[in-house]
C-alpha cells in the first residue's frame, strides 16, 4: 500500500461574521482525509462547499481554527514543504506588468534553480502549456484562459511531487480543458500526486482514481467514483424481449419499449417475483443490472439534502 502524500486531520475553519465579527460561521468542519502518493484525487463540491477553503488551508494562505495537515510527511506550517508542492490558485492572477517568461522566471527563483535551469524549465513549461508564441506579451493582455495556463505552468515549474489545483478547468474552452486533462494525466503517469477541486463531474469521473465529495463544509464521501455512487443502489433493471405483441401483462405496460426490446425498472426486492412473471409471459430475459446513481445524481442528492437541512434549521 502506498504512503499518504496528503494527510488532513480534523481540519476546521471558521470565519467571523457580523458587523463586530462577534459571531462565527463554520466553513469547514472536522475534515479528515488522505490522498495517497501517485493518485489523482478529485475534490468535488458545489460553490461554497469548502473545497477552496481546504486547499487554501493546505497552502497556508489561511489558518485553521483546529486540526492539522501534512504534505509528504511535513507539517503545512513548515515552509520547506512548498519545495515539493505546486499550487494553482482558483482564477489565478499574476503580476500583469510581467511577461509569461518573466513571471515564470520570478517564481522559479524561489525554488533555488540555477539561471540555466531556470531558463530551461521556463522554456519547457511555456511549451507544455502552449504559450510559446505569447511569451513576450505582458500578462495584462492575456485572456482568462491564457492566465490559467500560466498558473498551471508556475504550479509544475519546479517539478513538484504533489500538485494541488484549485478549479483548474475554470475559464477554459473545451480545447483548453482537454489540454489541462492531458497535463493531469501526464503528471499521474510521472508518478506525481494530484489533488484538484472541481464541480465539473465528468472531469472527475474521467481523471480521478478517487474522489471526495464535500458539501456544506462536511466531507460526505470518499472513494472511487464507482464506490461513491455504489453506496446505495436505486433498484434493478431488466432487459427482455417479447416476440408476441399481444401480451396484456401489467409488467409489459410498465416497461419502456425500444423495438422488440423492453426495459423494466423495479425495486430490488421485487426482482425474483418479476422474473418469474416475465418467464410465464414468454419473455426472453437478456440482462439484469443494478441501477446505480451517476456521480452527478449522487452529488445532486447530497446538495439537495444539505439545502433541505439548512432550510429546516432556518424554519425551526
Amino acid at each position: 500500500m502506498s504512503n499518504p502524500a496528503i494527510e488532513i486531520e480534523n481540519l476546521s475553519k471558521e470565519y467571523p461574521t457580523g458587523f463586530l465579527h462577534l459571531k462565527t460561521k463554520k466553513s469547514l468542519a472536522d475534515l479528515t482525509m488522505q490522498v495517497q502518493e501517485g493518485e489523482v484525487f478529485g475534490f468535488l463540491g458545489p460553490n461554497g462547499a469548502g473545497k477552496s477553503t481546504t486547499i487554501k488551508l493546505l497552502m497556508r494562505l489561511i489558518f485553521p481554527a483546529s486540526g492539522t495537515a501534512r504534505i509528504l510527511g511535513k507539517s503545512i506550517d513548515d515552509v520547506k514543504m512548498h519545495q515539493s508542492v505546486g499550487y494553482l490558485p482558483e482564477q489565478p492572477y499574476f503580476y500583469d506588468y510581467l511577461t509569461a517568461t518573466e513571471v515564470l522566471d520570478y517564481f522559479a527563483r524561489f525554488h533555488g534553480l540555477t539561471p540555466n535551469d531556470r531558463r530551461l524549465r521556463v522554456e519547457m513549461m511555456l511549451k507544455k502549456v502552449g504559450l510559446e508564441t505569447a511569451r513576450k506579451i505582458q500578462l495584462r493582455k492575456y485572456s482568462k484562459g491564457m492566465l490559467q495556463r500560466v498558473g498551471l505552468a508556475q504550479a509544475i515549474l519546479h517539478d513538484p511531487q504533489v500538485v494541488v489545483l484549485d478549479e483548474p478547468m475554470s475559464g477554459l474552452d473545451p480545447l483548453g480543458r482537454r489540454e489541462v486533462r492531458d497535463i493531469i494525466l501526464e503528471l499521474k503517469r510521472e508518478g506525481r500526486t494530484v489533488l484538484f477541486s472541481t464541480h465539473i463531474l465528468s472531469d472527475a469521473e474521467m481523471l480521478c482514481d478517487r474522489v471526495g465529495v464535500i458539501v456544506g463544509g462536511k466531507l460526505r464521501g470518499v472513494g472511487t467514483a464507482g464506490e461513491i455512487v455504489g453506496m446505495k443502489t436505486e433498484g434493478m433493471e431488466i432487459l427482455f424481449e417479447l416476440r408476441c405483441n399481444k401480451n396484456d401483462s401489467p409488467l409489459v405496460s410498465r416497461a419502456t419499449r425500444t423495438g422488440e426490446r423492453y426495459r423494466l425498472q423495479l425495486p430490488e426486492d421485487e426482482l425474483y417475483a418479476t422474473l418469474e412473471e416475465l418467464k410465464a409471459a414468454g419473455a426472453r430475459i437478456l440482462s439484469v443490472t443494478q441501477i446505480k446513481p451517476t456521480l452527478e445524481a449522487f452529488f445532486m442528492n447530497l446538495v439537495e439534502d444539505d439545502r433541505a437541512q439548512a432550510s429546516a434549521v432556518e424554519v425551526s
Partner: protein
Amino acid sequence: MKNVYTVATNTFREAVRDRVLYNLVFFALLMMGAAILVGQISLGIEQSVIVSLGLTAISVIGLFIAIFIGVSLVSKEMDKRTLYALLAKPVERWEFLLGKFAGLVMTLTINTAVMALGLYVALWTVKHPLQSSDVYILVAVYLILLKLAILVALALLFSCFTTPFLAILFSAGIYVAGVFAQNLRTMQTVDIAPAAMRILKAVSYALPNFENFNVMGAVSHGRVVPGALVAHATLYAVAYCAIVLAEAAAVFSRRNLK
C-alpha cells in the same frame, strides 16, 4: 535573504513599469522653473531659495510615493490575489514583507538620487561654481530618505491589518504627528494633569521623531551638518524601521487571505 532580494527587485521593476518614476519629470520642470525665476528676482539668496525648494519637493514627492505606494505594497497583492501563488512557494511571509519594503526603499533611493542631481543642476545654473559646503545638500537628501524609509515601514504595517484608505489616513496622521513629536517631548504646561502628561510623553516617544531628519534650514544656508547627528539619525531610522517591520511581520504572519 535571496528571497527578500528577489521580491525587492520585482517590486522595483513594478514601480518602474507602473511609471512611478514619471514624477521626476514634474520635479525637473519645477526645478527649471525655479532656477529661471530665482535668477531673476533673488539677490544673494539664490542658494537658500533653490535648496529649500528642491529639498521640500524631494520630501513631498517622496512622502506621496512612500505612503500611497507603501500602502499598496501588500493590499494590492491581496486584492489582486497575486500573493496566492507566491506564498505557496518556499517563501516566509516576513521575507515577502521585507522584500516589498526593500524594493520600495530602492525605488525611493533612485528617485531621490535623480532629484538630488536635478537640484544640483538647478543650483549650478543660478550660482556657479558650486562650493564645498554644497555637499551637505546630499546629507539632507540622505536624511529625507531615512524619513521616507520609516514612512514606508509604517504604511506597510497599517496595510497589514486595515483597509488601504485607513492605512493611508493612519500613515499620513502619524507623519503629521511625527513632525511635532519633538515639540510634544519638550512641551511644558501646567494645564494638563500629570497622568495625562505622562501618557502624552510616552506617545511622543512612540511616534517617529521626524525632527531628527530635518536639516533643511542649516543646509539651505550653507551650514555644516554634524556627523554625530547623521549617525544618530541613521541608527534611529534603522531601529525604528526594524521595530515597525517586526510588528508588521507578526501581524501578517497570521493574516488570513481572502
